[in-house]
């Protein structure tokens, strides 16, 4: 457990968009996928997952459809919409800029000042 990191505020939506952009997923699948693609490093608080999904659906960034799950149960599958894909690109670019800026700032040594 000590290896997992807390989620930064505002990053959950980005991660969900990323997860469903790879393949249509149901809610529990989103949880597993995020854990998997982060190498078990990110733990999603389960209580905030569904409100986030509903919020993204209301904003038309993802779309939902009922389908069959792996074990033949009815489940609600989420896919990313065109608007969602655009948003994901913007957020990824923004995040990368922020991350490299913070990394550069943190890597500064006293000689470079």
């Amino acid at each position, binding site marked *: 457990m000590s290896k997992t990191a807390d989620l930064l505020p505002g990053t959950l939506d980005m991660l969900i968009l990323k997860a469903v952009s790879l393949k249509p997923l*149901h*809610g*529990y699948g989103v949880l597993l996928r995020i854990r998997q693609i982060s190498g078990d490093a990110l733990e999603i608080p*389960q*209580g*905030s997952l*569904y*409100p*986030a999904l*509903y*919020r993204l*659906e*209301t*904003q*038309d960034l993802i779309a939902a459809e*009922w389908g069959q*799950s792996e074990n033949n*149960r*009815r*489940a*609600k599958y989420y896919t990313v919409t065109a608007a969602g894909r655009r948003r994901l690109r913007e957020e990824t670019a923004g995040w990368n800029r922020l991350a490299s800026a913070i990394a550069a700032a943190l890597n500064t040594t006293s000689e470079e000042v």
Partner: protein
Amino acid sequence: MFKRFRSLLRTLTGRRGFEAGMTEELLFHIERYTEDLMRSGASRQEAARRARIELGSLSSVKEECRDARGLHLFDELLREAKYAARLLRKTPAFTATAILTLAVCLGANLTIFSAIDSILLRPLPFPKPDRLVTVFNTYPKAGVERDGSSLTNYYERRGNIPAFASLAIYRYGTAIIGDAGSTEREQITRVSPDFFSTLGLGPAIGRTFTEQETTYQTDSVAILSDAYWRQRYHADPHAIGRHIRVDGLPKTVIGILPPGFRFLSSEARLYLPLASRAEDRMPLQRHSGGNVTQMIARLKPGASLAQAQAQIDTQNTTLEADDPQGKMMADAGFRSIVASLHGDHVASIRPTLLLLQAGVLTLLLIGAVNLVNLLLIRASGRGKELAVRQALGASRRHVVSEVLVETTLLTLLGGLLGLAAGAWGIRLLSALGADRLPLGSRMAFDARLALTGLAAAIVMGIVLAAPIAFLNLRRPLGGALQSESRGGTSGRAAQTLRHGFMVSQIALSFMLLAGAGLLGLSLNRAMAVSPGFRSDHLLTGQVSLPGKNYPNGAARLAFVEKAMNEIGRLPGVLSAGVVSNVPLSGNSGKSAAKVKGRIPRPGESPRGHYSYWVGGDYFGAMGLSLRAGRFLTAADSRRAQRVCVVDEDFARYYWPDGSALGQRLFEGSEERGDAEAFTIVGVAGNVKQAGLTDDAAQGAIYYPYVFRGDNNIFVVVRTGLPPESLGPALQQVVRQIDPDLPVNDLQSMDRRVADSLVSRRSPALLAGLFSVIAVLLTAIGSYGVLSYAVAQRRREIGVRMALGARPDQIRSQYVALALRLLVCGTILGVIGAWLAGRAMATVLFHVPAMNLAILAGAAGVMGVVSLVACLLPSHRAARVSPMEALVEE
């Protein structure tokens, strides 16, 4: 934004599906997680427990999901509405009173508003209707306020008034349509070729009239209204080119008007060219328009009414300078007025409508005050509950929204019922004669009105909620908890508010009552006016003799003689006569007369007099009184005697000291040869020609029928039987003489007299109805307020009685309170009644704005009603038993 709204809408419409889907999705999650946990070694029970804990409380997750969907506010609203509905159901008496009050008040307002909307507000059904104007001549100093426009005016102005884009003239009339034996008399309008282009709306099929079709030789064309086309030709598109007989002459149909075409209030079925001869268009005819010929024009874009008026004035001045009659017309105050077509058409009814709207708004105000009072009482009763909830953390927003939802629910329910009341009211209004008002036939219950009603209901809900919410928030919590628990007195603010509302209610009712009284008294005085003839047992009907078969006076006289003979032989007929126009028919024309040898006094203008051409025993049939000389007889017409009878007003004006008998006068404004002079052989009593309330001493002249140039006549028959029963016989007699001639407008004279007062009677009736409702509402309100005051002080009364107060002391305390409020309300009411009376001055007849009897009557009614309403609670106060009151809590 729109997308989000659509998604919310989708969710709302599939609300049940949404909830079920959400539950299913979350349960699926828990199940899958449980399975995964079990796979890593946990027992089923342990796994299920951990899965639930990690997801968190199911209901709070669901709530957050709903929030994410924007369903939160809606849910809260729904919950509050349900709560409010439950509370309202718990107090059926209050709820029913409130809803009924609202329904009556909103219904009355909707009814009057529908009249205002259709008559005053909705534009005429033409393109850019605000650019349409009418032009009419006025000779105020001659007593002729309005005299239409003449053909000469039209031909002189056409193309010469730069402010007008287009100018047209038209003449209302009737014509006999159809082939011999199956003729009908229909409303028609004769129009100049540019009439339709001025309005901006012409035939849907076919063409309009051309300039060539304005002479009597070339005018054999007609345009049909849509309704007449459907009735006569069953909407056959090939009706163009067909022939139709109008007054016995064949006309070719050249156009069909679109379905929505309605010129002002005209019922015309047929439009014909307004044909004329060259001499009709000469300067000599400039002032011979008469009220049946009217002018309309369309202002050029950018041109103003004032510019048009200035240009007309300039042209008139130039034209009159060369006119031998110019000096006389100037003396008569001649001017041509340009006025908005719509505004001018409804000008006569406008003050009455606005007055009635003010009346129903007052009613609404009274109703609203009643509701606020009832709601305040209700809120005080719930003060403790509210205080507890606020102490437990209910937010201020919550307190306000709860009140808002409750009152809006109440007003919406009342509003819905009010729509039904409004629909009924509109029917009542039509029955009272509103559809005969100018543009009144446009009145209908439509979506626009329904939306207005519902919007008004919502606004009322918000307005009513304001004082309640204010009071609820202002109440100190601890105080509310204590004062209620002690059963002591309510907050001073609430009490003052309640009493203030009651005073204002009494004042408003008083005002309405006094206003209705003024209208009623004014109607009463109008009805008491003697018309100058005996209206009972008198049947009247109109016959028009087409020019083709009755080309001259002799032919027309032959018909009249024959008809009089035949009618006189009908059983039950006492006497019969004909007249060019019966009094009170609504189109009394005035024309000039010149008294031989009279030199006008300096500054005196020529006068218009009511002029009648009479045959048969007109005077005997009408029951006119003879003041001097003799009446005209049938023999005068037969022998073409140049004699006439004048009325007292006429005689007194020209010969205040001497006798009118033997004097001579000329028809028209000029003195001509002696051979054309009429000798006055009699003086008759005055007759109210234009209306019972027409006070102007205009003077009237009666000429023998044979000198009449017009073809419209009224037959008047005095009978011993009920007059209407004679109608069929009269029609039959006329058909026997000439099968082409229908008798129209068959009405008893009593009916005409009653109809002439409809514009006074209907508003008076409505105002009376409104004030009865207002007084009733005030009684309910006063009763409610005082009952509450007593109920609230039961304990205090009990204590006082236990300490020795006598019941009559308690009673008189409450009666005194009621009296104090009544006096305050009445004083304010008198002030209001005075203001209302002044605003009503234009529609009152022989009644001053302040009438002591009416004020006293209103005060009496208000006094009796509010005292009765207050006595019951006071009585109850006096009967409070000290033991019970003290033990109760």
